[in-house]
């Protein structure tokens, strides 16, 4: 029973791949028409998705499980369907510019969707606060590059960057210089060196800020370098690592396409 659709995938897949290599007559036209078929068929696929959602909630209402919520969903669904049909008849199309049907989109979907995602702004702040602790080398790198990029991309961020990094360097220096005695041998010396290093960085960064409070040229140089440092991090190291990861992922999608073409992978057929 699985045979025919798997062969259809193989034939259509092979044709679309070979049409890429053959610029002469029949193939480009057939490829254009195959793409047109694809547009028509995926239009029907939308209907199936919506049907499974509505049927699921109808069953939950019939089984008396959270009737209020599933009821609200169904009422919302059928009211929108009715309003849409009226708008189509009245304005020649539900999404015509003057149609009142857009009221539903503008005043229910837009606020809900946008506010739902904006919750993440709160979660990001609390997650950053609780989890960005410089436990080891890699997590402190994560923290440092996040901090620089965050401060580098906002207008006043660069002014605030210098004092924050000074405080951070001095904190780390204080920690390492207090703790290095509890380690022996190699661990002890590295911690001492790192502590002194952070102390030096803190004082050097402090010097332009502390110079009599007025905007000393050195301070302005430090301030203006933060945005450039932020865009440099985005354009070079981030781009390189991202390219490495994406090359891996596209090899993965190539392998997945091969498995589906040959019919080993049939998840999509459920």
């Amino acid at each position, binding site marked *: 029973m699985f045979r025919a*659709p798997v062969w259809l995938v193989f034939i259509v897949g092979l044709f679309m791949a070979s049409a890429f290599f053959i610029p002469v007559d029949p193939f480009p036209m057939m490829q254009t028409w195959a793409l*047109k078929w694809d547009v028509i068929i995926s239009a029907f696929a939308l209907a199936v*998705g919506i049907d499974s959602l509505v049927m699921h909630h109808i069953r939950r209402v019939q089984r008396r499980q959270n009737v209020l919520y599933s009821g609200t969903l169904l009422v919302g669904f059928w009211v929108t*369907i009715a309003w849409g049909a009226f708008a189509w008849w009245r304005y020649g199309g539900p999404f015509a510019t003057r149609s009142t049907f857009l009221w539903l989109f503008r005043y229910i979907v837009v606020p809900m969707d946008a506010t*739902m995602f904006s*919750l993440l702004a709160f979660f990001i702040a609390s997650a950053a606060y609780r989890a960005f602790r410089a436990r080891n080398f890699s997590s402190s790198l994560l923290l440092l*590059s996040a901090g620089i990029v965050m401060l580098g991309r906002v207008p006043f961020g660069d002014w605030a960057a210098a004092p924050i990094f000074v405080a951070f360097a001095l904190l780390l220096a204080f920690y390492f210089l207090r703790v290095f005695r509890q380690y022996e041998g190699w661990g002890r010396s590295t911690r001492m060196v790192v502590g002194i290093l952070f102390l030096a960085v803190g004082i050097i960064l402090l010097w332009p800020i502390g110079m009599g409070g007025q905007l000393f040229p050195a301070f302005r140089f430090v301030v203006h370098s933060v945005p450039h440092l932020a865009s440099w991090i985005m354009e070079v190291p981030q781009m*390189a690592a991202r390219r490495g990861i*994406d090359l891996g992922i596209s090899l993965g999608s190539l392998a997945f396409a091969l498995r589906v073409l040959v019919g080993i992978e049939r998840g999509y057929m459920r």
Partner: protein
Amino acid sequence: MNIWELIGIWFAALLTFAVFSFLYRDNPVYKWAEHLFVGVSAALGVYAALEQSIVPSVREALAFPGVFKFITWIAVFLGALILFKLEALATYLPNLTFLSRYPIAFVTGMGVGLTLVNVVNGYLFPQTQATFLPLFNIQGADWLTLLNNWIIVLGVVFALMYFFFSAQYKGKLGAVLQVGITFLMVAFGAMFGYTVMARLSLLIGRIYFLLHDWLHII
């Protein structure tokens, strides 16, 4: 600013506070708003599908001359087969649901064929070729380009080797994972920093709506 818009803005503000209440705790008002949102957006999806794609496709199918019209009708018929997956039909005609596999197979075949070729032509080769960067003897280029080229080449190489699972990175080779994880951490940190601004823009958009459209303060 007619009465409908006024009601709309007040209802949108109500929904916005309903969602913000989720910050405190999961509460019935939030659940009610959530389900209303799901129902309305599903119905809007129905009309989007009907008005923007199914109706124009069928209208175009009739408009094309002769043999092309016939070809387009095959596509519409093949597309209609998917409807056998609908639960209403599936309950009455369970043994016909297998028919819906053919259109899905056609669309999957299209996706697979295009992926097999275009991932290589559009991503693998161009991105790899863009990483063949000169590492020394660059006349006239300043030291920053040289440094950037080194970092890009090393970054891509170590990121790829970090996801290399056929070699046992023991002892000395462990350093490869260390350098790889360093590049990844810098990249993820940058992505995190970049995303804070994105999520904040959404919150700013909502606050702008509350202050500007609802309360007319700004």
